[in-house]
């Protein structure tokens, strides 16, 4: 196992470096820079010092330096938790992202927990009650979840909540807790506001997972060893848990890595629609204004989370099911 961990960690390091370089260079590719749009506003207002101000800002953000030098400066700063200056309000990126990053991590963790718990229960129920009304209901929910875009579901819930229940669904906490230090009331408020975003963001992932678990478990349940077990009079629950469920659960573990980027990218538009103070809306605005330091920092965090998710998934899979794949070589 140590050898496996070492090899996977060694693969992670160059992967992250390549991703960080690609992200940084691609965001800078379009013509212009983050100062361009600010200066256009000043010029439109007839400010005579617009060009001098532009030169000043470019000097402040280091935009006069070559791109590779700015990249190395940014990468070097990561180790000091200094991601450079953001063009939005000229504040350090580290100050801008801290609370939003924490809220995003909380929201994504709750979403993934929701996906796993709900899809596990419904998936197992649907497979063990095939062609019963419960299976049809689960399948129907699954297809609905897969076919409705997350942002549309968010809009519908916003409308229904406001018009029929008088609820304000937007935001991640009550207005009185915004920019206030952490308190029990704030935690409760965040938890209450998390319910709708978690359901909206987790809907398609849950639906997909239900379908996959149901299909895998049905495959296993139809195998001869299950029929033999049943014929020998093994209790149904023991028969289910001992072999078929253990085999069918592998996709759950294998999907951890893929689930994380899906949930994060899916939450961007939902966060905009529901006015959630997570990283999504800020990332979108940073990409639109070519705020390279801010956008690259967000995307690097997504990459880090994805790579860590993949590592956890691979380690868990290696620990749970260290079987050889038939046809693969067994010896080096």
């Amino acid at each position: 196992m140590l050898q496996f961990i070492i090899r996977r960690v060694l693969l992670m390091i160059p992967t992250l470096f390549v991703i960080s370089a690609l992200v940084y260079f691609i965001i800078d590719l379009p013509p212009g820079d983050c100062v361009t749009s600010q200066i256009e506003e000043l010029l439109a207002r007839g400010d005579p010092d617009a060009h001098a101000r532009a030169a000043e800002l470019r000097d402040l953000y280091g935009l006069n330096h070559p791109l590779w030098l700015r990249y190395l400066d940014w990468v070097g700063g990561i180790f000091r938790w200094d991601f450079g200056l953001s063009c939005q309000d000229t504040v350090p990126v580290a100050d801008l992202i801290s609370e939003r990053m924490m809220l995003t991590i909380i929201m994504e963790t709750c979403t993934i927990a929701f996906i796993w718990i709900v899809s596990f229960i419904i998936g197992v129920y649907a497979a063990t009650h095939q062609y019963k009304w419960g299976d049809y209901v689960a399948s129907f929910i699954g297809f609905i979840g897969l076919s409705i875009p997350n942002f549309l579901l968010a809009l519908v819930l916003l409308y229904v909540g406001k018009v029929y229940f008088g609820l304000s669904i937007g935001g991640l906490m009550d207005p009185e807790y915004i920019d206030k230090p952490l308190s029990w009331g704030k935690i409760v408020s965040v938890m209450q506001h998390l319910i709708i975003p978690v359901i909206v963001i987790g809907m398609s992932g849950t639906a997909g997972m239900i379908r996959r678990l149901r299909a895998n478990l049905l495959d296993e349940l139809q195998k001869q060893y299950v029929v033999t077990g049943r014929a020998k009079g093994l209790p149904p629950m023991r028969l289910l848990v001992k072999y078929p469920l253990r085999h069918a659960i592998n996709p759950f573990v294998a999907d951890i890595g893929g689930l994380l980027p899906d949930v994060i990218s899916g939450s961007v538009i939902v966060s905009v629609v529901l006015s959630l103070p997570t990283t999504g809306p800020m990332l979108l605005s940073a990409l639109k204004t070519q705020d390279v330091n801010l956008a690259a920092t967000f995307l690097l965090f997504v990459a880090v989370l994805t790579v860590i998710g993949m590592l956890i998934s691979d380690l868990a899979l290696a620990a749970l099911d260290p079987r050889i794949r038939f046809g693969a070589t067994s010896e080096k």
Partner: protein
Amino acid sequence: MNSAGLRYPQKTLVADYTRAATGVVLCAAPLLLLDVNRWLAALLLAGLALFALFLVRTALRHRTRYVLGPDTLCADGPAGTLVEWNRLDRLKLSYFSTKRDRSDGWMQLSVGSTGGRLIKVDSALEGFHDIVERAAQAAETTGAPLSDATRANLRSMGIVVVGQEETV
């Protein structure tokens, strides 16, 4: 059956030393050269400890000679130990791969006898197949419990342990 002395090939050891050294350098360099944030420093220190552990393990492998005999498997080296085949109570054969399709991986055998420490060997070891075969024979005799994964991996190596077929 005569006793056979088995070692890890030079090529495998060099590759492992390179991996360990690369990891140690990558984790230690920022700590030594930059003013690192304390949380990141903790992460880098954890990485450094992991790679240092791997370096020690590789060095131990380098200095160890495995002796496969009719009655025992002996790891003759700095952290040496002995497994008696007729007292075998633990046998685990795992397969690891860093590729998504799980191809091109390696096997790891863990064997232990009552009251003794485990011996872990990788498929890179010369004579790995002979050790697995002998361990499977011993498991057949002693009735050591085998997991599903171990049975599947043994089958893929053409080894079937009589009396350990899947039961429901």
